[in-house]
């Protein structure tokens, strides 16, 4: 009996350690963002201190404010999400539901495009965008973000479209509705949940992207993940401000993640169990 109890306590301790390990770096960044630089640098590290919003005031309202960068991130992420969904929803519907030659190949092609390493895309695209003057522009960055957001969105949406019963469509056709009308009125409302999950995933991926952003950004278009580097230089690190910027960069995705938590897990498993099992 005691051995069993000991085991329960040990397992509880292990699980607590893992919970803490995952949460701590995030909590610690939040705490550091509320400190002064000298409190950040204190040894031993301070868990208790008098909190201040100075760092936030400086990075948001001070000179070199990161507000334009946050706006950049929002424009890029929303733009990518809108363009991706406009293209992915019809394509996913066709792949899941319609009959046409080369369908298998089309599905395989979508999966295969994900194999290409991002660095292999950005090298040629850098040359192309430089030639047409699209470096440091929103259209340039959003265009290249389609390379990873589109295959992912199509592939996730197909799994949702496949879950709708065929009878619904057939009934609509029999009533004389056109295909487009059926898609818009009958099918799309059925996959609202799937579309919402896909929107969340595409937004997260666009918000978090770094490699393309670091190559293509400039003075006009510079998302917060890239602008973060302003706070760490060889000469000095602006500790509290860096923490504040990190927290601001984390905030939208953490909120989205927690709100959509159940759906994210479902999306991941659709990808792992079903999506991977296709073809």
């Amino acid at each position, binding site marked *: 009996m005691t051995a069993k109890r000991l085991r329960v306590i040990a397992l509880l301790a292990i699980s607590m350690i893992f919970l803490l390990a995952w949460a701590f770096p995030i909590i610690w960044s939040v705490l550091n963002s509320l400190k002064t630089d000298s409190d950040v640098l204190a040894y031993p590290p301070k868990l208790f201190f008098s909190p201040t919003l100075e760092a936030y005031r400086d990075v948001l309202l001070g000179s070199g404010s990161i507000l334009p960068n946050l706006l950049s991130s929002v424009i890029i992420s929303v733009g990518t999400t809108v363009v991706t969904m406009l293209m992915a929803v019809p394509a996913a519907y066709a792949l899941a539901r319609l009959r046409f030659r080369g369908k298998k190949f089309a599905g395989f092609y979508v999966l295969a495009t994900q194999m290409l390493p991002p*660095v292999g895309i950005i090298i040629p695209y850098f040359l192309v965008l430089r030639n047409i003057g699209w470096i440091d522009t929103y259209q340039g960055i959003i265009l290249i973000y389609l390379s990873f957001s589109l295959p992912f969105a199509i592939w996730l949406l197909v799994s949702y479209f496949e879950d709708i019963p065929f009878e619904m469509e057939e009934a609509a056709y029999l009533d004389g509705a056109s295909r487009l009308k059926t898609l818009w009125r009958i099918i799309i409302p059925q996959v609202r949940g799937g579309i919402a999950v896909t929107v969340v995933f595409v937004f997260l991926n666009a918000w978090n992207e770094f490699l393309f952003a670091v190559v293509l950004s400039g003075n006009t278009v510079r998302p917060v993940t890239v602008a973060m580097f302003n706070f760490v230089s060889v000469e000095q690190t602006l500790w509290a401000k860096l923490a504040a910027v990190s927290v601001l960069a984390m905030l939208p995705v953490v909120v989205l993640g927690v709100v959509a*938590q159940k759906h*994210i897990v*479902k999306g991941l498993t659709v990808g792992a169990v079903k999506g*991977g099992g296709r073809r």
Partner: protein
Amino acid sequence: MTSSAVTSAGIASDAPRSDFGRVLEQRERRFAAALLAPAFLALLATTTFPLIFLVYTSTFRMDLAMPFTNGFVGFENYQVLLSDERFWSSLLVSLVYTGSTVAFQVVIGLALALLVMDMKRGQGWFRIIAILPVVLSPAVVGMIWRTFMLAPEFGIIDYLAINAGLGSKNWLGDPTLAMVSVIAIHTWQWTPFAFMVLLASLASLPEDIYEAARLDRASAWQRFRRITLPLLRPAIVMVIIMRTMVALTAFAAIFTVTGGGPGTATEILNLYAYRKSFTELSIGYGSALAVALLIVTIIISGILFAMRRAK
């Protein structure tokens, strides 16, 4: 009804030929083409075209710093690559990084999923906390670890090391420790992904098999070895495939933490291709490195997919 069988299979092409006739079928094809066109044109433009252009540029000397030396060189970049020590070392770093991070993610993720599965209370906490690292930008994660976690003395990891009697370490300045650090950071961020997927798969396993096993007095280990593991195998292999692809092309978390350094200690092949192209501005050779990375990716995924089909 026949269509219900079709629905459960979920494959539209098996749908029974309806009475709508050939005209409708042709109309369906045209409709499909119209729906697919925008997405496929975009995919062609953003993936297939760059691939072709990449292979093309890899046959050139294309040095942005010294444009006068530019020109067609055939396979010279690839010849240079084969005798380039930095290429082989970056390939080795890639393989070590990918192999170790994927192994850690699967082992820890699976162990934790088994542990949490048996918990009667508190599963919700794990689900909420586990989502946090996964949704973060690897660039932000790298920045947080580089500063608040790994900085000498006031960084928490170093503080813990000092208190454990190990003394303050130069976590990112020592080649071995830097490698350990970037592996730990990747493992920290992505183990929750493996955990969540495996937990969901565990939850979907049929309960009655375990009942039968319990009646047969199978031990916990036997149940794991003979029932859980075989049933979970497809999910585990899928996690391995997905995580391997990501680890091979990891960029932000290494770039922000070590930049590939010290020296080239943490420079994975992906990062080498980037540095060659955009820091040293040698685009032609950088393209050849990217092509090499693509070939490595294809070989490894080929092996993994063969593994999946093996049973």
